[in-house]
């Protein structure tokens, strides 16, 4: 389905682009049909950048990304099957227009010939799919809707297309605990319908809740990836361990993991590529025993 190979992104930074910053560093992973892969990492580790490159919103510096074997080609046809939902639902809506304009844009681009009535029906059913009441949410301005409602409308919007892949970039970070869980449940359902989802997050518990497989990023490079339960139950990389230990848990005290800085080999993630520690579980260090 989605294949990300050796993708690199270098930004020019500084007032006049005097320096460079490698936001994504030779990242490779794969998302299979009907699978949720979660992309985990701290802020600034390059998660959104990867997502946007897949969506063709920013150009890559190196590597290839293919969807069903076809390289990313931003444009109407590509977006018919690949869509994204972003982190901040409030900024996804143009504040001066009504929220349902996002549906109108889809119609104008992809279904100009569908009669209005039929279109309304489709929109209604998509909205009902995300468990919203069309009458409650249509015809309103973004600020009159809650974050959860907006977020779900965005998902409904994506559902209007013949979607194969959805990039969900931290779609729950702005939500209330209770709304959050509703949205997650919805994603999980979509997966059941055969949709591939790349779920970007920095909240480990959410990634764990949803994904089949997990990719852990640090400073733009993959440090560990594999089946979710393997990564979480048996974290190999010290960074993964540190992350896991920092998560506040309701019923357990904070545990202490040795800080990553003490490791001689992990100044900046991996350099020698990934090492398959066990089948389907990759880690960016071959010298774990020394840590």
């Amino acid at each position, binding site marked *: 389905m989605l294949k990300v190979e050796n993708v690199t992104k270098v930004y020019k*930074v*500084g*007032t*006049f682009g005097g*320096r460079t910053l490698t936001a994504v560093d030779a990242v490779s992973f794969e998302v299979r049909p009907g699978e949720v892969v979660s992309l985990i990492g701290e802020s600034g580790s390059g998660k959104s950048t990867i997502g946007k490159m897949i969506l063709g919103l920013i150009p890559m510096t190196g590597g290839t990304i293919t969807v069903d074997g076809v390289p990313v080609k931003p444009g109407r046809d590509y977006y018919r099957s690949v869509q994204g939902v972003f982190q901040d639902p409030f900024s996804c809506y143009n504040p001066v227009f009504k929220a349902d304009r996002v549906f109108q844009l889809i119609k104008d681009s992809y279904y100009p010939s569908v009669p209005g009535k039929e279109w309304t029906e489709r929109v209604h059913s998509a909205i009902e799919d995300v468990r919203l009441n069309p009458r409650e949410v249509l015809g309103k301005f973004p600020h009159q809707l809650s974050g959860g409602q907006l977020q779900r409308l965005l998902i409904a919007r994506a559902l209007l297309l013949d979607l194969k892949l959805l990039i969900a970039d931290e779609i729950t970070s702005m939500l209330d605990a209770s709304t959050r869980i509703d949205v997650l449940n919805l994603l999980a359902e979509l997966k059941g319908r055969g949709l591939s989802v790349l779920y970007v997050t920095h909240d480990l518990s959410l990634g764990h809740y949803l994904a089949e497989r997990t990719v852990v990023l640090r400073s733009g490079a993959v440090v560990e990836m594999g089946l979710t339960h393997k990564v979480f139950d048996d974290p190999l990389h010290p960074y993964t361990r540190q992350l896991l230990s920092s998560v506040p848990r309701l019923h357990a005290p904070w545990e202490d993991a040795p800080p990553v800085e003490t490791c001689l080999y992990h100044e900046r993630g991996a350099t020698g590529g990934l090492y398959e520690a066990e089948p389907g579980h990759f880690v960016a260090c071959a010298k774990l025993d020394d840590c």
Partner: protein
Amino acid sequence: MRQYFGRKLFIYGLTFVAAVTVNWVIPRFMPGDPVASMLARARVSQPEAVEAMRVYYTNLFGFDEPIWQQYLNFWGALFRGDFGISIYVFPVPVTDLIMGAVPYTLGLMIPAVLLSYWVGNRFGAFAARRKLLDNTVLPVGYVLTATPYMWLAVLLAWGFGVVAGWFPIAGGYSFSLTPSWSWTFFLDLLHHWALPFLSLFLVALGGWAIGMRNMIIYELESDYSNYLAALGAPAKLIRRYAYRNAILPQITGLALQLGVLVAGALVTEIVFSYPGIGSLILKAIQNQDFFLLQGSFMFIVIGVLVANFIIDIVYVLIDPRTRTGMAGAQA
């Protein structure tokens, strides 16, 4: 840092080339021929004499060469500080005329710009968010910025000069004096300088006061101001900090405004017959003296360019945010 300056220099260099080219091109493609105007001035009627003079002046101004050669010559001359010979103050070199006028213009502009900037900003910062001041004094500021320079200047000249008789209304110094290094002369200079300065100062003052007021209101509402207030810092400190931050955009404002201020100085000089570049330009226009016009214009362009460049550098030096921006902390 080096790259930043390299970049800036490049942009300014390019601007300079463009300005010079524009300056060179415009007169050449407009109607009216300077040689013809010289001839018309001389009131010569004999055809042979006219022809001889035409040849002579055409040659003198270099119009007999191919156009590209004229362009190159212009550049060459520019670097020699040679802007040609004035037509209406024939045969004085344009450079001499400009050099005679520059001290007056700078003497007017620099204090007017700096003082109005300083006073205006202070004043705006002081008045912001103080209901009484905000509602009484600031409207005056609006009125001042909106005042056409010449209108104010003429009113001042008439009121303080002609009616009250406190100030002279023309010239850079008394017509009875010869320049010398004496108090008398200096005071006399000051006496003549006062009104033109005042008219420039007042109009600019209003602008800065308003700019600052609008800017500092945002700063007073900003997070760091709120934090200071929450920690019980006195209003004075908060205002001082807000001022420091609000002044930064005002510095860029200064760069943006410079062209306008030059225009203001021009008009003011004309009203007060102040012997600066402005008066020179007006005369050059009235007398179709395009070498003088080119020269004066070049001078202004160079002045504005240099001022902008300085402002750009100052800005980088005093705003830590731009400096770290250079180091890559900003996207």
